[in-house]
């Protein structure tokens, strides 16, 4: 199979999955199976591309010219191959989980849910493989619009207002900051293509670079840096499979991925290091990390707590990009994988607890550890990985980020990362502690939903196993860093 065909296939398969789900909407089992099948195929394709990138193969395809110097084109970068691998592999598990959750929780409109779920994955893959900033922007918007029906899925007043907030923040920031920033780059350089080492050097006035970085980081609202983070906790009204795959993996990772891509392939790390225009962002990211960790502690609702934890973890990646040193970028890129794996585990568990025991609050988890041992086991694995305890995969990315901040001589940042880990321990492990130590007087009826238990176990164990195969990913990531 030719390389360009592989890209088309990978991007189009999720759309076909959506189409087939619609065609087979009257047969629930058949309808839901297309997510799994589509996930498997895209996973194989992503894996093949991932290996191809390791062997210096080129994957690109150009469809047509949009305007001077900007084509509608796809080109897989090393960074993109990582993101697509994460999104497609977790899509398989999330599809299985979705079946268990949606039926267990008795949600309505399941067909619409499955369809938009697939479209969102389609957009995420297209973002991963986009060849220039405008194509990335197009699919960034499609991702926002396609997740709107998922956020507002319950169609009650609460989810509707959450959906509006979600849409207005994400589309608003992208139209006010992101798109003008793209225009600005285009006017200065005449191109928007992703190139190793960036395209702005010697073409963009260095004194305005800080301003451009600000427009980008606030324009890419999906990266959820404070103060543009409100949409993420609001989006938690969605059914848990959405929170798990989209608001812990696809959507938010598309955000930080976009920012990382801009830093690596548009601005160029060298240019950033020379001008030090992103140093202010280091402090904003640190603030976001600390502030959202503290807010997370105060949240009793498990999903809200995880949402704030996500905001904090996303800022790790922004931090790495802002530091722009090779170790920090390595850590940031790797954190896309490690956080995705850890956080999806936690969300899977939160959803599984909700379906089996109808518990949403941390304080209600008393004694549940003994009743739901497998779920709590998986949860613990995921939490340990996010905290960054060896031998879990999360420890690698945190290690590189700390090294990166020391390399740039931001010692305070390294200390903040350490404190943040301590806070992580508190708010992520508290549910486990409550679950196993305190006893509940209430009698709780459990519903069996085995399909919601296995996916988190697999991802949780993945956090453990991949610790030993980190080099497998790091090979590709090293290709990202050219300086």
């Amino acid at each position, binding site marked *: 199979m030719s390389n360009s065909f592989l890209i088309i296939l990978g991007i189009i398969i999720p759309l076909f999955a959506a189409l087939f789900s619609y065609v087979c909407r009257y047969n629930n089992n058949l309808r839901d199976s297309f997510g799994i099948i589509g996930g498997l195929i895209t996973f194989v394709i992503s894996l093949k591309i991932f290996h191809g990138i390791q062997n210096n193969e080129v994957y690109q395809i150009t469809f*047509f010219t*949009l*305007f001077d110097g900007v084509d*509608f084109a796809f080109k897989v970068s090393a960074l993109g191959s990582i993101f697509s691998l994460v999104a497609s592999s977790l899509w398989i598990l999330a599809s299985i989980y979705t079946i268990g959750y949606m039926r267990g929780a008795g949600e309505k409109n399941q067909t619409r849910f499955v369809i938009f779920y697939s479209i969102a994955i389609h957009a995420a893959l297209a973002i991963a493989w986009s060849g220039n900033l*405008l194509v990335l*922007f*197009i699919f960034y*918007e499609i991702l926002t619009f396609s997740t709107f*029906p998922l956020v*507002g899925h319950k*169609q009650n007043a609460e989810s*509707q207002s959450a*959906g*509006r907030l979600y*849409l*207005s923040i994400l*589309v*608003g920031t992208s*139209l*006010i*900051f992101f*798109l*003008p920033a793209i*225009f*600005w780059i285009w*006017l200065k350089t005449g191109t928007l293509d992703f190139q190793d080492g960036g395209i702005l050097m010697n073409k963009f006035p260095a004194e305005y670079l800080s301003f451009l970085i600000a427009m980008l980081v606030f324009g890419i609202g999906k990266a959820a840096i404070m103060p543009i983070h409100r949409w993420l906790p609001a989006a938690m009204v969605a059914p848990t499979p959405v929170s798990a795959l989209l608001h812990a993996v696809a959507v938010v990772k598309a955000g930080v991925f976009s920012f990382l891509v801009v830093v690596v392939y548009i601005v160029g790390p060298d240019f950033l290091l020379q001008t030090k225009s992103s140093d202010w962002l280091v402090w904003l990211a640190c603030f976001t990390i600390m502030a959202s960790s503290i807010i997370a502690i105060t949240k009793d609702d498990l999903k809200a707590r995880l949402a704030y934890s996500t905001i904090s973890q996303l800022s790790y990646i922004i931090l790495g990009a802002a530091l722009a040193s090779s170790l920090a970028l390595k850590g940031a890129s790797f954190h896309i994988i490690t956080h995705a794996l850890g956080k999806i585990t936690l969300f899977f568990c939160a959803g599984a607890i909700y379906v089996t025991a109808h518990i949403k609050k941390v304080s209600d988890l008393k004694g549940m550890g003994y009743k739901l041992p497998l779920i709590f086991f998986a949860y613990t694995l995921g939490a340990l990985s996010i905290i960054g305890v060896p031998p879990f995969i999360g420890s690698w990315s945190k290690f590189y980020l700390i090294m990166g901040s020391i390399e740039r001589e931001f010692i305070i940042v390294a200390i903040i990362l350490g404190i943040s880990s301590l806070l992580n321990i508190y708010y992520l492990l508290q549910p486990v502690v409550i679950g196993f130590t305190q006893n509940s007087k209430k009698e709780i009826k459990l519903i069996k939903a085995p399909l919601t238990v296995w996916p988190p176990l697999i991802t949780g164990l993945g956090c453990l196993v991949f610790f030993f195969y980190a080099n497998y990913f790091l090979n590709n990531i090293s290709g990202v860093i050219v300086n």
Partner: protein
Amino acid sequence: MFDIFLDDAPALVVVLPLLISAIIAFMPSKIWPWIISIITLLLHLFLSLHLLKEISVSGLIIYEFGNWEPPWGISFKIDGVNIGLQLLFSIFVLVSTFYSRKIFLNEIDYRDSGKAYSLWLLAVGSLNGIILTNDIFNLFVFLEISALASISLIALGAGQNRKALLAAFNYLIIGAIGATFYVIGVGFAYAMTGTLNMNDLVIQLAQYSDGQLAIFAGMSFMLIGLMVKAAIFPVHIWLPPAYSYAPSAVSTLLAALATKTILYFFVRLLYEVFIIYPSYLSLFLDFVLYPLSLLAIFIGTVIAIYQDDIKKLLAFSSIAQIGYITLAFSLKDHSGVASGFVHIFNHALIKGGLFMAVGYFAILYKDRVTLNSLKGFGYKYPITSFALLICGLSLIGLPLTNGFISKLYLFQALYTNQMYLSIALVAVSSALAVVYFWKIVEQMWFSEIKFKSEKEDAYIYLPIWIVTISIIVFGIYSTPIIEFSNLSADYLISGYQN
């Protein structure tokens, strides 16, 4: 044998609709007026294409009526500036006439069909005259014909809602005031120069190169009169009621083309005639048109957000969009004028498509379309709804639609003129456009009421989809629009630099 007619093509594109309009006025039939109109407009399109061919060879056609030479007789001028608009006009009128048949049959008494199409062709002919004329008094005549035809067409909406009469009356009074201002200005100009022909006017005005109060007064009167007619903020108040209470087919025609043709003449007057007083021109552009455009963009968008009636919402959005066009025209350079023309083309398609879709909804719903009444329409009428969605996304200016191309070139023009504040305002306003448009989408697809899909009328949704597809096509392959706009700007701005 057609060659004799082809020589007179510039006159025929205007005269033909006017003539036919007189013929079909008293036809009692339900269908014949429409068929004759379609045939007329097909001929009209053919003539426009012929003009395009001629222009691509010669670059300029001056048509003298009755062979009276220009300074004395009336003349039409076709050149790079208006040929693109002429083509757009021809094509869009044809499409909207196809669309109009079923809509008119539902909204007005079928016995009035002949009168309606007679007025329709009258409006078409006179609006086309505005595009072609090279004579400032002749323009006034066409302005009046088009205004009277539009007002009568708007009043036909009274069968649906009596407020149409009030809207028509408003338009009549305010439009008459605008036209009076314009004709007073023409009077001043004629008194000072003794000529009405635009090319001659430029030559004659040169003798007052140090400036004359009477000239400036005349110019100001003319510009203000045209601003009223083009619905530039704050003299736009006739437009929202007129567009929203007119029969749907009429709103489509007016929203897409009526203000656009007047805007075209406005910019032509500015850059072709008034250019000989650069200080006056830049005073007007920088201190009148530019701030008013920004206000129009912002206020139009904000008011649109608070509208419940969809046609009113679209009308206020038109005010903002006209603001974008005048903002571009106020930039005094090639990129600005070109981007203004780009948006004239693109917005005609977008707003035309939106009004067509909403007009069809009005007929299906059998009442005025409000936010509430749209509940579940996305499922009930998927074909039309989907077209509406695409047109709306283009209005916001998302990539792969022609609205994005408009925005791209507008940003570029503003950037080269270092108007960073305007860029910010335009960006904010396009984000606010999401708010009002998304309210519609939410009602159509995400309300609690569900319907089974119903049959939609292909005679109505086909024209809508022709417009919608052209929106996507010009979003991806924007070269034709860009080239026509650059051509227009080349012709206009070369005068500025001399």
